[in-house]
């Protein structure tokens, strides 16, 4: 994939899945799996120095509004909190989301003080490890808003309310206004769950390229196959699925189901027609991945894992990356 985002950012051991692994649904969203190269016996990760996803525990918002605490229970490795992780809860407490990707050092807690409240008129602090917490990643549109460095670093916890209101307004069935993510996620929980179920991970999948219609809107890569199996639903349901559904509900996008060509001939012809069609889709997507150029700077600290905020040289695309040893990327979350 010369000149693609992967080459440009140094992801040398990943590749797009086979054309036949492309998944698309009638609403018009497509996911192309990104796989780690090799077979089942090869390492299934980009790094051995990132803790397993279940080592990350949410410890609540008791430090104050706009402050989310996460704990790393791994004694050996740092853990990653995916960019824009959102916690919606059945507790009488204010739902929150992080503004950027997080790294929590081994065997320790860390409080992020630039988080966003996503439930404007609800008071109360979220508690740790509550069964009624549901995790997602913020919808695409809100993540794009948080690419603005000033907004991202702002510690004012209500900073996302007007953006949430903008997200909710075009949806005809939601009559309330304000910065309440639950107005959307609660009534559409089951729909989002079913939507996401259509994009299950394939063998050796480590990430995905996401398209709305013909446009590439996201590139996600996790540190390992295990991380993708853990986080794929947060991303597909919360970030991209929610956005797709918002578009469909508000009528701002036409359903654009991919149409297979007419099948004819014998069975081998049929196989060939489908395979060719899907390979041609893959080629289009690979071409689209060469359209962006990104810039970002790495901090100078001694930490093994360092976050990088990436910005496109043109347009408003960007996202979060984590680099190990200042050279090997281990995590990528881009919204384009």
């Amino acid at each position, binding site marked *: 994939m010369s000149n693609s985002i992967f080459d440009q950012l140094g992801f040398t051991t990943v590749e797009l899945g086979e054309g036949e*692994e492309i998944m698309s649904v009638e609403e018009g969203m497509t996911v192309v799996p990104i796989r780690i190269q090799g077979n089942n016996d090869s390492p299934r990760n980009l790094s051995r120095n990132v803790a397993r996803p279940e080592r990350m525990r949410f410890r609540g918002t008791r430090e104050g509004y706009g402050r989310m605490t996460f704990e790393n229970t791994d004694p050996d490795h740092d853990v990653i909190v995916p960019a824009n992780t959102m916690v919606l809860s059945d507790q009488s407490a204010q739902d929150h989301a992080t503004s950027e990707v997080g790294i929590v050092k081994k065997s320790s807690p860390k409080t992020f003080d630039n988080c966003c409240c996503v439930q404007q008129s609800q008071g109360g602090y979220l508690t740790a490890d509550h069964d009624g917490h549901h995790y997602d990643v913020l919808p695409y549109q809100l993540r794009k808003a948080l690419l603005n460095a000033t907004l991202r670093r702002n510690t004012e916890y209500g900073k996302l309310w007007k953006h949430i209101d903008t997200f909710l307004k075009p949806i005809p069935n939601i009559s309330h206004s304000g910065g309440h993510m639950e107005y959307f996620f609660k009534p559409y929980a089951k729909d989002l769950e079913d939507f996401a179920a259509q994009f299950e991970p394939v063998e050796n999948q480590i990430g995905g390229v996401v398209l709305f219609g013909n446009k590439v809107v996201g590139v996600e890569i996790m540190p390992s196959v295990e991380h993708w199996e853990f986080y794929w639903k947060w991303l597909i349901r919360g970030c991209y699925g929610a956005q797709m559904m918002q578009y469909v509900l508000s009528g701002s996008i036409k359903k654009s189901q991919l149409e297979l060509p007419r099948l004819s001939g014998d069975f081998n012809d*049929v196989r060939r027609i489908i395979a060719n069609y899907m390979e041609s889709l893959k080629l289009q997507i690979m071409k689209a991945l060469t359209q962006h150029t990104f810039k970002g700077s790495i901090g100078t600290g001694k930490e093994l894992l360092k976050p990088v905020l990436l910005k496109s040289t043109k347009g408003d695309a960007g996202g979060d990356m984590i680099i190990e040893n200042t050279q090997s990327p281990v995590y990528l979350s881009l919204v384009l």
Partner: protein
Amino acid sequence: MAKKKVVKVKVPEVPEVDASILQFVPKGGFYNPTDMQMRKMEELWGDFFSFDRIIFALSTILPGTAYSKGRMAQMLLSNPIKQENALVKYGLYDDFEYKVMLYNLMKETPSRSLKNLLMLAGIKDKKTKEIQLPRINNARTRKLILEYIFARPDASLDGLAVKFKQKLRKLIRHALGKQNLHNILKGDSTLFKLHIGRYKPSAMQVMQFLFNVDTESLIVSEGFKKIALYEQLKVAAAAGNSDDFVKIAEEKQLPVEVLIGYKNQAKLDIDLKKIYEVGQMSNRQKLQTESAAKRTGAKTQVNYYTQDIYDLWKVLYHKLISQETDDFDRVIDAITKKSTEKAAVNFGETVVIFDCSYSMRGSVQRPMHPFYTGLSLVSTLDNIKKVIYVGGSFMNTPSDKWPKLIMPRGGTKLWEALLQAAEMHPETILVITDGYENTVQGSFESVYQYLRDNGHTFKLVQINPVFAAETSGARRIVSTEPALPLTDHKFLETNFIFGLLKSHSEQIKTLLANKFKDIVLKEVNQQVRIEGIKSR
């Protein structure tokens, strides 16, 4: 008092229901879709009830989940029965609904039957105290509860009383009302005879036991040995006498949960290993507590050959995932043997496409349920030419008999499997899938259409082991072909009968009425004759 739910009667038209109404279990998936599924299901039950109360009641004798049957019985009991001339046409009498409900209770495990009866005592949300199910207390309800509990042999009542003491108390109190209960316990023999003695004249001692009346001087007859031991155990526990406690337990009469309960309550220093070895357990309970018992070092022997094949698959995968090697081969042998007991439904020569993608792992509340249901079906279906597993990855096992087992994982290229299956020219292609393609949507349907256009005449049967609320039933993989919901491999017959409901409702009613007369009536009457009325 809670307002009773009364179903409004609409103009009868065959409703859009399928067999999922008899297969519901209130266990959803991530977030909280249980509520959503429940609302949808209540709507379907209501529509079906309004369509035809007779078919509604009779359908519950078909294989289905106890929960569905319990909720449907609750609907029947909460709506007064009317004189129905139509019954004569089918050779039924006014009490047929009652007999259907009693039969369904008899067919379930006592634990499940009591849960269903407890629905009639009303259910409130534990957090909000909001009424989820209203109390129902009318003559039929009272009779059903008391007849189910007391019309049984002494030994059976003895076991029921010690194992489900609290549940029985609640049910009897609900059925009799506080005043009647008080009077019966004070010795009102007329009332006792009217409500309980008609089924079991010797049940007064059971009532004393259940409601802790004069238990110190309680003398129980030979038939109620467990009750006597229970009382002795209680005394030993209260006195902190571990030796006596163990001696009583060693009689191997009392349920393991009773022993554990009193041991913990009295903080007795008795090894749990001992309790597991002497406590009484049902075969299924032994299977379910196998790992816990083994952790204590107890030597318990589970008879795998008497278990349901679904439970056996579950145990096998549990052993595989937790790397338990004990009895692995014995479970395989039991599955092999159970697989020879074939289902009554036969599709003719069949190729099975088995979706082993990630979503077949099911919900958090019922992990792996769709997958185990599929495995159980594949094991018991006759005339299978080949099974094509799609997706999944193989795990090594500790057994030479089956060195690898498939685990749901990855996506599904179901369209490719459909081509492979069609190449074998079977009579039927059976697809076990939740309906999510995980590829370019519509690929399966395009290939199916191509095959039809090119003269392939196989019958396509889609079995969906996941109830999908948004589609009022099972999610389809081909828009023109219905998917059969199947949450238990034993429910295939139900699917076929419901499949014919729309086109042959009258014939289905007759078929169910005949089934009622041939099976239900005989079994219920025999039960009552042997165990209840005989002693009046």
